[in-house]
């Protein structure tokens, strides 16, 4: 329905949509370089985003948003100048370049700039035949209606269903003073189902499940795609209806596979981002080569997994993404870098320079962060705990990277009593210290799973899509927050 969203290739996008060409790119970069700067880059973006939301049995409204703009950056030493505009033209880009270079003093040392190449990214991790924002809205509405009736039929205790299909199609183009010229087309889809269940005593609880990634939206709209998501939301709400208050105190915790990998993201992932380590504000600063986790614990950040929500062909500075070993068999091996922090620390970018949009400065950010599988049988891991907590799904988490303290909240958890999973508990919050917690991983299952593709990470006011993964693990003596003393 929208002419605007018909996807051009990024280079024709630059020409047709913004009326710019290679020569104007070079002129803008040269303007940014006309004082003493180390690096300058341009980030063009044209994004279409839409959402269709169902509640109370009907799709009440549709949303569609178009966002475009250009960000111009200049770097001199540790300084960064950034200017962005949603008016994309030679003139506005020149003005932005002049603003961005304001951080620098002294005459330029750079000569002429030449951007080269076809602009094609080095990999193609998420080819789609149909941009998700081009899928007819009627098809999305039909699926939401089908989910609503399926969920309501499945159990009389379900009182409310909220479901949505969210689609994004992002075209970006990056040009830099080192000659980098690369474009990427990034589809992103997501299906969310939230239900509220109420029992005869009037107790109300909620259940949620979602799924998504960088693949054909049709896969989620297919019955085999949406049904397990809807069923899982119902199951989780019904479990929570039976949940008892969570005990508080220190206990052994078993984390289930998949989404509980948010533990890695919060407890250690942020602390291993290059900016915090360059500034030495992280509890992990200057600890490369040291033991930071129990033997057997290997943690990876990998932006190259096909179709994953956290994956990218190139990061938002044009660097190809890669598989980075953060912790190898318990030893800290590396940090995640963008260009600025890599240059200042004398290493190479790991392809982790990401930004929310053209309106934001890139920073080192995670992509898909997970722990490799171990040898243990998941059932046996649960049996090994005398008295503890089994947590299978989480809401959000947060970390203070300086003190290392992290917290995250379980949305589905059970007590373990005598090696058996027993009563569901509600309101369980796990808290701990990042540099310590992985030392206490005493069992690692063979069942590594990645999450279903719904994670977003916030840092310094910027949100980016990420993935996490974990096998079943046992962590000894974690602090569990609950109401039962």
């Amino acid at each position: 329905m929208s002419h605007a969203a018909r996807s051009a290739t990024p280079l024709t996008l630059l020409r047709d949509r913004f009326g710019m060409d290679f020569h104007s790119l070079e002129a803008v970069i040269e303007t940014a370089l006309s004082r003493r700067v180390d690096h300058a880059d341009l980030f063009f973006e044209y994004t279409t985003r839409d959402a269709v939301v169902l509640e109370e049995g009907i799709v009440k409204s549709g949303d569609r948003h178009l966002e475009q703009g250009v960000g111009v950056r200049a770097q001199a030493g540790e300084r960064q100048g950034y200017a962005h505009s949603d008016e994309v033209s030679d003139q506005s880009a020149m003005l932005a370049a002049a603003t961005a270079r304001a951080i620098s003093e002294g005459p330029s040392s750079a000569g002429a700039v030449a951007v080269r190449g076809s602009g094609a990214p080095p990999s193609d991790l998420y080819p789609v035949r149909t941009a998700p924002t081009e899928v007819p809205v009627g098809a999305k509405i039909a699926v939401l209606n089908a989910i609503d009736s399926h969920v309501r039929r499945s159990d009389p205790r379900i009182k409310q269903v909220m479901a949505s299909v969210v689609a994004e199609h992002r075209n970006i183009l990056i040009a830099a003073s080192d000659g980098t010229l690369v474009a990427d087309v990034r589809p992103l889809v997501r299906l969310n189902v939230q239900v509220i269940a109420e029992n005869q005593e009037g107790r109300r609880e909620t259940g949620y499940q979602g799924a998504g990634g960088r693949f054909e939206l049709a896969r989620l709209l297919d019955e085999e795609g949406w049904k397990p998501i809807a069923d899982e939301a119902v199951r989780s709400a019904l479990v929570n209806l039976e949940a008892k208050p969570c005990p508080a105190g220190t206990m052994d915790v078993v984390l289930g596979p998949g989404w509980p990998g948010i533990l890695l993201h919060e407890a250690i992932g942020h602390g291993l981002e290059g900016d915090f380590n360059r500034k030495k504000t992280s509890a992990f600063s200057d600890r490369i080569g040291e033991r930071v986790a129990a033997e057997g614990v290997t943690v990876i950040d990998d932006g190259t997994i096909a179709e994953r929500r956290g994956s990218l062909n190139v990061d938002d500075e044009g660097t190809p993404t890669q598989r980075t070993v953060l912790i190898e068999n318990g030893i800290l091996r590396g940090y995640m870098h963008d260009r600025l922090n890599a240059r200042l620390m004398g290493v190479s970018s790991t392809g982790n320079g990401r930004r929310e949009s053209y309106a934001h400065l890139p920073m080192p950010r995670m992509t898909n962060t997970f722990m490799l599988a171990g040898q243990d049988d998941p059932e046996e891991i649960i049996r090994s705990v005398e008295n503890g907590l089994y947590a299978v799904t989480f809401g959000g988490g947060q970390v203070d990277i300086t003190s290392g303290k992290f917290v995250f909240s379980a949305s589905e958890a059970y007590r373990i009593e005598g090696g058996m999973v027993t009563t569901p508990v509600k309101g369980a919050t796990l808290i701990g210290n990042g540099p310590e917690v992985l030392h206490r991983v005493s069992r690692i299952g063979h069942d590594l799973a990645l999450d279903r593709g719904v994670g977003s990470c916030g840092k310094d006011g910027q949100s980016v899509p990420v993935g996490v993964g974990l096998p079943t693990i046992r962590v000894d003596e974690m602090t569990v927050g609950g109401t039962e003393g």
Partner: protein
Amino acid sequence: MTPDLLETIRRALGRAQRAGAYAADAVLVESDSVEVRVRGEEIDFVKQARERALGIRAFVKGADGLRSAITSTSDLAWDAVDRLADDTVALAKATAEDPHAGLPDGSFAADLPDLELLDPSDRDVSLEERIDEARRAERTARGFDPRITNSEGSEATSSFSRIGCGNTSGFLAEYESAAHSLSSMPIASQDGAMQTDHWFSVARHRSALEEPEAVGCRAAERALARLGARRVPTCKVPVIFDGVSARSLLGNLASCLSGYAIYRRSSFLADRLEETIASELLSVVDDGRLPAGLGSRPFDGEGLPTRRKVVIERGKLETYLLDSYSGRKLEMASTGNAARSAGSSPRVSPTNLWIEPGASSLEEMIAGTERGLLVTGLFGFGFNAVTGDFSRGATGVWIERGERIHPVEEITIAGNLGEMLTKIDAVGSELIWLGSVAAPALRISRMTVAGE
């Protein structure tokens, strides 16, 4: 050159009607912003931006109600605006009829009082002055104590906005506003352990900001106060929230007062209107017309006048926060709490929301606590609006015999917000505005603290 803001709104509305819209409204936001961060002696970054975005909501008439859609764009060329208006109507035709959908029934804002949302002289401040202010905050924080060894930096920000809103019922108006902030985030270290905290000041007028030195100083004090923090044994004790953490608690409460959460029955406060839901020490006010308030606006996201209302009067729930849609669903009038950015649907948001200050100073509250916890920071997202279950990470200070004993970290505090509200047994006398939501210190007679 960009066409006039109101002219663009008029064009979008006219085009939507010609495309078949029964009714429509539109918002246009233009903003200029600047942000600088200094870390140590160096500029970390300077950021400047100009942004504009137009949002259109269109309604199409059906047999049993209106169908609707929302769109937005940052491309404001006439042809792009026309296309967006056409697309909005086309998208609306695909959605379901909703008997409650539509523009507000009338009573749009007629008077536009000057709410002192902008000081024109603040536009003349140079980039160099802002860098200097960030530098002064940073130097003060870094030089405050030898144990301040590092920082994440100090920032100065300003933004100036023009907000226009119009609809096919004849409302068309605009206003200007500004926001300025200064913040600092130093790092303290001792015995190999690092701690950080921050302080900030935010205001509509630069003249109302705290001095950069005061911001740096308070930030350093807060970071230093965390040094030597440790866990405490799991226990049930009185918990005092300082103004900063009480503000976070009020934010949790506000999400449960939204008309959308109420009609969906996804709030534990559904069906509780006119009931006593809190201690009689608790009164909560929402006022969209507080002079120079950070949440003040002359009209809301649907063009309705904002106003003052008592939300909780001495423990009794007097009103929910409503826009026209959630109001119609609940058979109540909008309270003028529609918030809308160009890129979002109207939703309910508090304007300036605060807890009325009480009689005790924070020091008196601490002195009156035999054994308990002072919370100075909350983190994590452990709040469930459906049930009110609350379980969040906290930092603070342990209290014995009315005195601060040692800083505390790596603990959680848990309870149920519904019960916590009834257990408020002291309300602080000092109210600091750190945004559009403000709270004095609060003491809750008993919560579960999870630690060792």
